[in-house]
């Protein structure tokens, strides 16, 4: 059990928890979509402060975790080329491909660079006209505007030595896919606050209506998450299924119109495979025809690479909320942050990494996992 005084405002946390406990009369299972929320929940022990019947199912909203193996392998193949400077966010360095990771490519002499912003990669392209600079463009709707702007700028500046390896994914089709699954246990969603700060909230009422699930846009800090859970429980108990915005200080209903306009110009919807989950129709973005020459898959002829997922790693079931990380036999044994079998053990937002970092000792004491 965690202590409430770790919260920034313990009195408010206590009041929110009291209301959640008072309102809960039945067991409910709700999914927090975003990996950042998963980490906050596990780090602060929020799930342990909730009524026994309330289960938090950890969703697939970790972009690093759902980037398919074959895209990682494409990244590795491109990064190993001598003419390439391969730029990535730091989270991707140790995500295992079929045989290695970007960290190993760098150790073997590949020019792999970690950047804070995709615009840093564009700067490298300007400074190194004799090299090919590739940026690994992964992420949900929160990250896509940054990559869109970067490609737009590359075209505007006439930078022909820049390209993007794109693997963008979208939240609403993932919610639909989860609800369509025959094994679905999710009765409500905490939607990802920062995705909605870009896209707004208008995509969600039709989903809440169609699948009869409450969807509550929720922030990332412990108090935000408690407020999201409180509003979700109130809806579930009242038999309502609506969109609510519990993060209005960052999420206007319309989102960010300038970012949405750029996204509509640079990207177009496409089917995407999600690591461990499989293909979800119309669940991602690729470069639109106007920017197709900036597609690294075409430029480096890796579009036809196909690979198979590991049979041991059960991250697909974790990402769908079918098992908790420690229910995988490899958790904490063959699979650790030092030797990860799957991306969920690597990313700072992966559910397996969260359980390993914050729960491993508890799980060992309870006899529920391996040391």
């Amino acid at each position, binding site marked *: 059990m965690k202590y409430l005084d770790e919260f920034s405002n313990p009195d408010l946390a206590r009041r929110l928890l009291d209301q959640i406990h008072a309102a809960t009369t039945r067991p409910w299972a709700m999914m927090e979509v*975003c990996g950042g929320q998963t980490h906050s929940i596990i780090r602060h022990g929020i799930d342990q402060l909730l009524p026994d019947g309330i289960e938090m199912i950890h969703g697939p909203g970790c972009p690093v975790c759902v980037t398919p193996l074959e895209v990682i392998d494409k990244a590795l193949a491109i990064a190993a080329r001598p003419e390439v400077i391969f730029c990535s966010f730091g989270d991707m360095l140790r995500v295992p491909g079929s045989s290695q990771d970007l960290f190993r490519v760098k150790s073997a002499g590949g020019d792999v660079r970690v950047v804070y912003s995709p615009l840093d990669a564009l700067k490298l392209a300007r400074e190194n006209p004799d090299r090919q600079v590739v940026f690994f463009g992964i992420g949900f709707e929160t990250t896509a*505007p940054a990559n869109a702007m970067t490609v737009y700028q590359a075209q505007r500046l006439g930078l022909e030595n820049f390209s993007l390896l794109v693997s963008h994914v979208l939240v609403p089709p993932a919610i639909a896919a989860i609800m369509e699954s025959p094994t679905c246990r999710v009765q409500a969603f905490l939607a990802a606050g920062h995705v909605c700060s870009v896209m707004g909230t208008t995509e969600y009422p039709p989903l809440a209506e169609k699948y009869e699930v409450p969807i509550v846009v929720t922030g990332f800090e412990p108090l935000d998450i408690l407020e999201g859970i409180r509003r979700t429980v109130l809806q579930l108990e009242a038999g309502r299924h609506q969109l609510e915005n519990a993060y209005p200080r960052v999420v206007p209903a319309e989102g960010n119109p300038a970012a949405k306009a750029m996204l509509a110009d640079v990207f177009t919807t496409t089917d995407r495979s999600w690591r461990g989950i499989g293909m979800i129709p119309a669940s991602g973005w690729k470069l639109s025809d106007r920017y197709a020459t900036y597609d690294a898959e075409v430029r480096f002829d890796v579009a036809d690479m196909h690979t198979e997922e590991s049979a041991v790693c059960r991250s697909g079931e974790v990402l769908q909320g079918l098992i908790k990380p420690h229910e995988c036999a490899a958790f904490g044994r063959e699979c650790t942050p030092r030797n990860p079998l799957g991306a969920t053990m690597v990313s700072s937002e992966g559910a397996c990494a969260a359980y390993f970092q914050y729960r491993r000792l508890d799980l060992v004491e309870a006899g529920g996992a391996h040391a």
Partner: protein
Amino acid sequence: MCLAVPGRVVSIADRDDTRMAEVDFGGVQKEVCCEYIPDVQPGEYVIVHVGFAIQRLDEQSALETLANFENLGILEEEFGDGFELAARQAGEDVPR
């Protein structure tokens, strides 16, 4: 990387026809693109994700969030050296 960190806009300048801002994150300063919040002014707080301002935020919320992130070591994760973090996780040296 889905993290978005609040920061205070210190100054704004056009660079190559792109609106860029110097943004202060509790002492760490970074150059941030503010094309998506085109009318932002120095002194205002914005939420920044991978070097892009994506929304405004009121000062009190921003300061509370920054204090939380500082306590949790999240700012170091966000702005630290990616290779050092990965090397520490792998238990290996940073490749040179």
